[in-house]
């Protein structure tokens, strides 16, 4: 039974309701049956349309974590401003070139490596909290839970301490 159609079916103009099956009323189908395909023989292929399945939430989450790491490390800043990977300063007395890891002098400036390492520390802290939650999950063995808990706590502690260290080096007057 043909549905009561509104405005949606006006555009194509060719196919009406039944395009599948032998008793088709599609004129283009009949034309195609006669003109090339009466003397051309289509090969038998075993192709299937790729089916689109949604990825699981945790897969999406891991991709998002990667993107978060890039954004937090100042990736866009790196692409646009193009700072050097690591800065350099000349020692005034000996004249040797020393590498400088943290760009000093302003809050909104960075070298590439300092951005990536700070971003890594933030993500490490985040993963630590996630591991703590996994440690409190009921359906695991006790030893696994204990190791998750230890790993989680150490990740959080290391991530926090290193981030504080980095920000103290970067901004000399921090918390004064």
């Amino acid at each position, binding site marked *: *039974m043909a*549905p009561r159609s*509104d405005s*949606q*079916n*006006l*555009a*194509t103009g060719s*196919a009406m*309701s*039944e*395009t*599948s099956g032998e008793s088709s009323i599609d004129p283009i189908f009949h034309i195609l049956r006669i003109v090339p395909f009466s003397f051309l023989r289509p090969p038998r292929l075993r192709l299937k349309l790729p089916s689109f399945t*949604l990825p699981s*939430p*945790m897969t999406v*989450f891991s991709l*998002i974590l990667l*993107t*978060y790491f890039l*954004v*937090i490390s*100042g*990736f*866009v*800043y790196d*692409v*646009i*401003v193009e700072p050097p990977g690591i800065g350099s300063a000349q020692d005034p007395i000996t004249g040797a070139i020393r590498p400088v890891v943290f760009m000093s002098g302003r*809050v*909104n*400036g*960075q070298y590439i490596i*300092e*951005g990536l390492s*700070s*971003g890594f520390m*933030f*993500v490490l*802290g*985040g*993963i630590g*909290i*996630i591991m*703590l*939650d996994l440690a*409190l999950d*009921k359906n695991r063995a*006790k030893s696994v839970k204990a190791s998750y*808990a230890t790993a989680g*706590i150490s990740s*959080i502690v290391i991530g*926090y301490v290193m*981030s504080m260290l980095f*920000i103290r080096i*970067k*901004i000399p*007057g*921090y*918390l004064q």
Partner: protein
Amino acid sequence: MGGKAESGNASPKSESMAAKKASPDLLNSLSFKSLKLKTKQQELLIRVSILGLVYVLAFIARLFSVLRYESMIHEFDPYFNYRTTLFLTEKGFYEFWNWFDSESWYPLGRIIGGTLYPGLMVTAALIYWTLRFLRFFVHIREVCVLTAPFFASNTTLVAYFFGKEIWDTGAGLVAAVLIAICPGYISRSVAGSYDNEAVAIFALLLTFYLFVKAVNTGSLAWALGSAFGYFYMVSAWGGYVFIINLVPLYVLVLLITGRYSMRLYIAYNCMYILGMLLAMQIRFVGFQHVQSGEHMGAMGVFLLMQVFYFLDWVKYQLNDTKLFQTFLRITVTSAILVGGIALGVGTASGYISPWTGRFYSLLDPTYAKDHIPIIASVSEHQPTAWSSFMFDYHILLFLFPAGLYFCFKRLSDATIFIVMYGLTSLYFAGVMVRLILVATPAVCLISAIAVSATLKNLTSLLRTKQKVPQTGSTKGAGSSKVSSKVSLDQSQPFQKNGAIALLLGAFYLLSRYAIHCTWVTSEAYSSPSIVLAARGAHGNRIIFDDYREAYYWLRQNTPTDAKVMSWWDYGYQITAMGNRTVIVDNNTWNNTHIATVGRAMSSYEDEAYDIMRSLDVNYVLVVFGGVTGYSSDDINKFLWMVRIGGGVFPVIKEPDYLVNGEFRVDKGASPKMLNCLMYKLCYYRFGELVTEYGKPPGYDRARGVEIGNKDIKLEHLEEAYTTSNWIVRIYRVKPPTNRL
């Protein structure tokens, strides 16, 4: 519950006690025993008191600059908003709505009524009129200064309700606390920062909350509320484009993940149609919702929703799967085809305008650097480095991924929304420093989810009851398997100690967050920018009030129809405080006019004089930081004047002013630099001044060099006023000499 039984016992007990003992005991017993509340009432009391304290905290955390300096408006843009609010309260709404201002952008003028977002001004005026109605006769400036902290407090309440909607009341409370002191929000909403973002963030969060509530309940009333919230947002800030793109994107994600429902249909349709109609009431927005490329996503998703609804109805009518599959394929193809053709025709014919530069540079961050120097020159538009994130968020950067994890564990319509809001706004915050403000509510909410979920886990560990052998119910996170109950007994005190230690650790982290936020607010975000402060030699504080000194000099010592030429940064302040006509101001709507001023500043004095005569300029104002070491002066901004001027007038070439690609002002500087108008005006008579002990006269403290050209003679201008610390210098343009 214990509370119930005890309150039941309390009343006959208190009566019997009262009958036996004297009156002080009666008073005591009545007051203590009858105050024994049920648990629900206790919880309500705790929640209300926490919210009240957070409300007060959000307000007072923003008052640093009012206490240190005085109650004044900060920065540049707020001065324009203040001037328009003053006009609104004095002349009324119709004059304000139809205002043509001839005092800025001489000789073009500016249609203020049609080129501003009136939400902020109308809000402040309404508060002002309400207070006057209640017979509190405050000055409008006080209302303007305190509007931002007031709305920040309201935002914490909305954050609480939003958190309650997404997760639970615990997360709502934590979200309110986090957003009350988060430096990312405080930076644009201190007392005195009377800018659009002050009310816009409140409107943004309110719109999102009402929309999520509408999607969760499917109620038409909430959808209507979200449409009005969107209207408030459109009236308040140009950033409403974020809402009109995020909400359709969210709807699209819900459709893809198979969460189409009648609630979503009602919520989105109502909000989109009514919101669009209401948004067209703002003259500045006009018909952009049907004409601009940035708003087409919303329309496309609207049509897609109609297709979904139609397909759903047809499926219900058909009862035949195969037929329906065919019909589905045809309809989807034809809908996409029709939509694509319509979009193509609209764009090709020019009816649908392409994305404007400001928003296009968010999608392609390299665009502004190459094509639009005015956008690239604003320091707030630079991309974000990691330290800006750390400065503005601190602990929330750790809690954000954890919160995302919890949201993904418990996916629902509301958590999908907050995840999308958080991710898109964080990406945009990475592209432009200024947009950290838009990301702040999302980051606070998601972090609150992480905090609440973790604390819930830890406290449930603490609350596992000692009586373990109950085959049915086991509360808490201990294992529920019978076999491990013995080991549970032995490890329980260890678990409890561990949980207590972790709770203490969590409280330590949150207290460090509070300390960081207070320090950042106090040191970095509470400076008025118009008043500068520095530490003197003995550690005492020195205040430089040169800007206001210069503006008041202009106000009192120049003729009322005088026109002042300066770089566009100072336009709003000159018009608001100096009350004089300016050539260009912060609105930056006319690039050619700004380029003309830039060309005048970077030309030799004779050419600049011709340009100034053509613009009827009477006074020139420059900002110079060489004496005080102030680094945001016009010499440091000079290269942007050259670039913007050179973008329109090819006679100005940037390499003329550089030496080996380097910008210098000392003896090795290029001759064009040493003789251009800006150089002469900044360094006039500076060569005789000794600025620092042990350095030669004419030592520029901001650049750290001795200037190259000390013997400056001005032919067509004369010095009118220099402020006490030489920060602002005003010159009078001399009329042409008589022909002989």
